[in-house]
């Protein structure tokens, strides 16, 4: 193993770890189209030092048959709606489902870390190579809000954004 490779690796680890700790992020950053995906939202801190009281996530188009995992101490609510088009799942047509998941009424102090989980399937006709974004609104005590909803424009990288939305890079169908 060359020194150069090691450094690249260290940098990669440093950067990925750093990013992971900095924002609300997804534990797994990649998924194949047509596969089930367990989205683990990691909430590393509150808003400007205040405790988190709600986490709301909007699911990307094409992330179908989604189900959230209930969480003790938090009320769970889902917003269902029609998808932009119909998708095929196990030979059946799916046209509607969960599009937003809210965990509310909890209390996650700034000093603690927690995860919020949901599961679904990336439809088989999504385009590999693109990134599916899960914009998250983090609400805190005193009405402060952090919005992890910025999606990079063409030519922008996630690092250019102050509050990037967590994303999953779509890999080719397995």
């Amino acid at each position, binding site marked *: 193993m060359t020194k150069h490779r*090691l450094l690249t690796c260290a940098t*990669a680890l440093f*950067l990925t770890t750093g990013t992971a700790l900095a924002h609300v992020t997804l534990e797994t950053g990649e998924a194949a189209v047509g596969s089930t995906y367990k989205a683990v939202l990691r909430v590393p801190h509150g*808003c400007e030092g205040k405790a988190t009281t709600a986490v709301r996530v909007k699911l990307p188009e094409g992330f179908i048959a989604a189900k959230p995992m209930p969480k003790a101490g938090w009320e769970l609510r889902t917003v269902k709606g029609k998808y932009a088009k119909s998708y095929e799942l196990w030979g059946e047509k799916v046209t509607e489902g969960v599009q937003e998941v809210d965990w509310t009424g909890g209390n996650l102090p700034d000093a603690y870390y927690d995860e919020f989980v949901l599961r679904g399937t990336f439809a088989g006709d999504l385009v590999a190579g693109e990134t599916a974004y899960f914009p998250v609104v983090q609400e805190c005590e005193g009405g402060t809000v952090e919005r992890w909803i910025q999606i990079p424009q063409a030519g922008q990288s996630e690092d250019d954004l102050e509050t990037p939305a967590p994303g999953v890079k779509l890999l080719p169908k397995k």
Partner: protein
Amino acid sequence: MTKHRLVGGAGGVFASLLLAFLLWLALPAVAFAHAALISAEPADNAILAESPVRFTLTFNEPVSPLKLTLVRPDGTPVGLSDFHVDGGTVAIDAPGRLGQGTHVLSWRVVSADGHPVAGSLLFSVGAPSAAPPATEPIDWPLDIAIWIGKVALYAGLFLGIGGAFALAWMARGRDGFHATALFLIAGLAAAPLSLGLQGLDALGAPLARFADPAVWQAAQSTSFAWTVLAAIAALGLGLLSLVLPGRRLLSLAALAGTGIALAASGHASAAEPQWLTRPLVFLHGAAIAFWAGALPPLGLALKRRKADAPAFLARFSRTILPVVAVLVLSGTVLAIVQVQEPSALLSTAYGRLLTAKLALLIVLFGLAAFNRWRLTAPAEAGEGRASARLARSIAIEIALVVAIFGIAAGWRFTPPPRALAIAAAEPAAMHIHTEKAMADLSVTPGHAGPVSASITIMTGDFGPLDAKAVTLVLSKPDSGIEPLKRDATKPGDGTWRVDGLVIPVAGRWSARLDILVSDFDMVQIEAPIDIRPQ
């Protein structure tokens, strides 16, 4: 980027990850998470009675400052190097005693991810202020040339054409013929030169570029071109009236031309209401020419003890009173329109020139009144001593008139308070149009200091855009000012507003609008906006 792609086998992955982890531990002790400013002392927008001794920035995580800058009210950035960090608290010593006015404290710190976080806050010592006016360098040779050109043009229009008029209508002899012709020729020479100088001034070009066609093209597009055109026509008519028959009509037309030339451009003619100011400028100019132009021929005739001098004097003194009344009345109204407030007579350059002109006018009127009521009657009666005194007195009057022309030519360089007030209130505006959204941002007044921002947003295809929130983010990287964020409010008229904003420094700012379209969808648009000095 993932770990899998970087190394090959499973053992390799483990070994490299372990080594990488050790390397990572060895990296300088940076903090662990995305930092956010929790509180600051002084607080954003604070107004302090006294200069602060230190600034304190408190973040939610330990941070390490990369760059700390204080921007003084005059726009000079000062790097702040005296600070100490205690976890998430950065205490910064103030760079000495701070002056009155609005300061910007800009910070750029690094937290866990090595991703710098930056922001700015404003605080004022005493009261919010603005940057002092930026002084444009004065091109003295050009300004002096413009001034001389203007004085020569006035001499031609007033003394030349007025002289031709007096010779045609009031004098019997030809005294003052040469002087009048000289004034007219000087004016004719000065008129086109002045136009070229005007072009140089419009482009901000130096005297050396006088022959540049671009300069003359620029001059042509100014209203002063009309003045020059009318002046050349009037001066030509004046010259013709000296040599051709029908001199009364020609000189009358020339006198009207003087009024037209003056009314065509200049501060007073540009003032509103134009239906009032332009005719007043016309009358004022014609009256000046009538009065001032008669003085050299009259003075010379009296000095030379010409037989026709008493008759000339009698005609002049019969008509001068209504002319002076027109002169004073039109001048007074124009002064009120231009100066607006008596205090501006001393507080602005324009007002001070007007004050100086008024002072000279009072002396001139005093002298003229003395001539009119004490010397005219005996001189008309043919008394030699009175005539000589009157001639001397008229010579002084002419000197005063020329001095007044000099002052009036100085106005060329000073915008009147009326124009200053309009310019100062003018908003700075920008328009951004992107595929996702478009916005109009106007900052009123458009200069440094306390301002309000008004924002109108629409979708990219001109549809209504009902945003949940709009945030205005201003930054000025070249002055070391990191983003200043202000949430906009909705006054209910379809616009968004940011009130109580202070723009601390003039120049080109970057304005970004964060438009929250829905809970999960934010559009950011950004464009530069130019803020004038106060």
